């Protein structure tokens, strides 16, 4: 199988949500000497990019997007360990989390997928995460982006606490803070000192591109 065939297989597997094909394609890439980073970027990520565009255009919907995301991760599980350390170290890091008091994470998971598909090493802290943990991890990991979300009004203050915690630790100027979730707004982002309020995952990625973080 040619390199082009393998890369197309990986992209197609993600596009169609075929996990077994992604795993097989990833292994074939390694077995045939395709650099892991190239297999990720020109295969898995290319497929996820099409999924993201189709989702934004309402040509694909959440069930397919989630299947594609999990398919991409299945391929990444095989390819990421094969990336040379120097290349891996060069990847920018993004922290994603749902703030403390909330467990609704479907939006956060889509953002995680799109950030990963944009070349970030994405560290998912999960849901119901205290602000101090988000701040500590951002600094420890040297994150370029902190993307936090919530669905519920009472937990919005946790977002403010994250921004303030980053200021206190002196790390705020090193990181872009994006917030998202139905109760948030651009005005709220401005009020708490976040850099951007994401309408959706694509908007998050597009804004980071505009800011040349990606």
């Amino acid at each position, binding site marked *: 199988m040619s390199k082009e065939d393998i890369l197309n297989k990986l992209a197609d597997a993600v596009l169609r*949500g075929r996990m077994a094909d992604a795993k097989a394609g990833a292994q074939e890439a390694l077995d045939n000497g395709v650099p892991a980073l190239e297999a990720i970027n020109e295969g898995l990520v290319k497929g996820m990019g099409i999924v993201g565009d189709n989702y934004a255009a*309402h040509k694909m*919907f*959440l*069930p*397919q997007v*989630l*299947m594609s995301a*999990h398919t991409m991760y299945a391929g990444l599980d095989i390819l990421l360990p094969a990336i040379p350390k120097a290349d891996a170290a060069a990847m920018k890091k993004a922290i994603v989390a749902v703030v403390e*008091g*909330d*467990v*609704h*994470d*479907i939006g956060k*998971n889509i953002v995680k997928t799109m950030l990963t598909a944009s070349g970030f090493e994405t560290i998912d802290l999960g849901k*119901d995460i205290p602000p101090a943990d988000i701040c500590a991890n951002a600094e420890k990991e040297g994150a370029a982006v902190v993307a936090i979300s919530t669905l*519920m*009004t*009472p*937990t919005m203050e946790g977002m403010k606490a994250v921004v303030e915690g980053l200021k206190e630790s002196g790390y705020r100027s090193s990181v872009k803070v994006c917030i998202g979730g*139905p*109760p948030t*707004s*651009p*005005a*709220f982002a401005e*009020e708490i000192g976040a850099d951007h309020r994401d*309408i*959706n995952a694509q908007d998050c990625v597009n804004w980071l591109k505009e800011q040349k973080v990606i």
Partner: protein
Amino acid sequence: MVKPMTHMERGLAALADEPVDRLCNYPLAMGVNRRLLPGSPTYREWANDPKLFAASFIEGQKYFDFDFAIGLMDLSVMAADLGAHVRMDAENTPFVDGHIIHGPEDYEKLAEKGVPDIHKGRCGVLLEGTKLFAEKLKGEVITAGFIEGPLLALSQTASAERMFMDMFESPSAVHKALELTSEMDSQLVSEFAKCGVNGLCWDYLWASYSCLGDDQYEEFEGQYALKLNKQVQEEGMAVCIHSCADLPHLDYQINTYKPAIFSMGYYPLIPGSKSPTEIIDEGYTKNTLFAGVIDPQLFVRGSVEKITGVTKDLCQEVKTALCKNNQKSRWVISSNCEVPPDLETKLDNISAVVNTAKEYGAF
């Protein structure tokens, strides 16, 4: 100029698109009303005591002077009774933190368990509380119960992400569980009818183009909801829908369910989200009374001046669009979603919306 109307007269006229003295108002203030009760019970106390639940709607009506009363508690009522674990903090909207579906086989296990006794548990509190406030407010305002759609109830039980993936990989298993949540909904519909409410308001959260396509929505909720909506009408209640998600499946829901009332949100930053003017211009209000679209966060973070201005602008926009389309009254000045039931929500902002709608919604 139309002579002053009672709440009931105004609501019924708006449903029929007949002339009204002013636009109806109903900022979706539910849980927040508990703060008007003696001792200001916590959210947890309110959601567990049918008398407190009912009293809050009655007190809210006295204090704010709304045109409707719709008995929303929260969106984890059915999931709790189906066995999911609900985290209920003292002053936060409860949410599921322990799902019971972890694989395709669990949908069948759920279906085999059958419908729980809806007279007990959280459903029991909701039904009893709804009955109490509906009895008290009968004839004063249009009342409605509030019920979770079958797909929403299942997603709360299974986790949305799990369920969406299983819709893709194991659709037959998901359908088995949906038959169960639909049966539970059917039993709830019959019990709500006995509560004496005028209508029943469904939450079809996933009927959104940010979540599902038309075919998926019809397969996984539409076919069940259509039967349930017929049952609602047969049992003497008006079908109402609350759809706070962005980009709702408007055409499907309006044309298929034929709701009397449709409450929705408007998100100007989201491409394709329809403003009140677009909703009215595009004919959605020809047969349905629409409600919206004040940002709920304004009740927490906005000033009285700010929310007054927003309400004034909304009244003007709606009246202009109705007039342009030769319609009389089919819009309720309302919020995109529930007024946050938080302690930080400003009660004065709710009053400001009501009072502004009275003044600037007048014809």
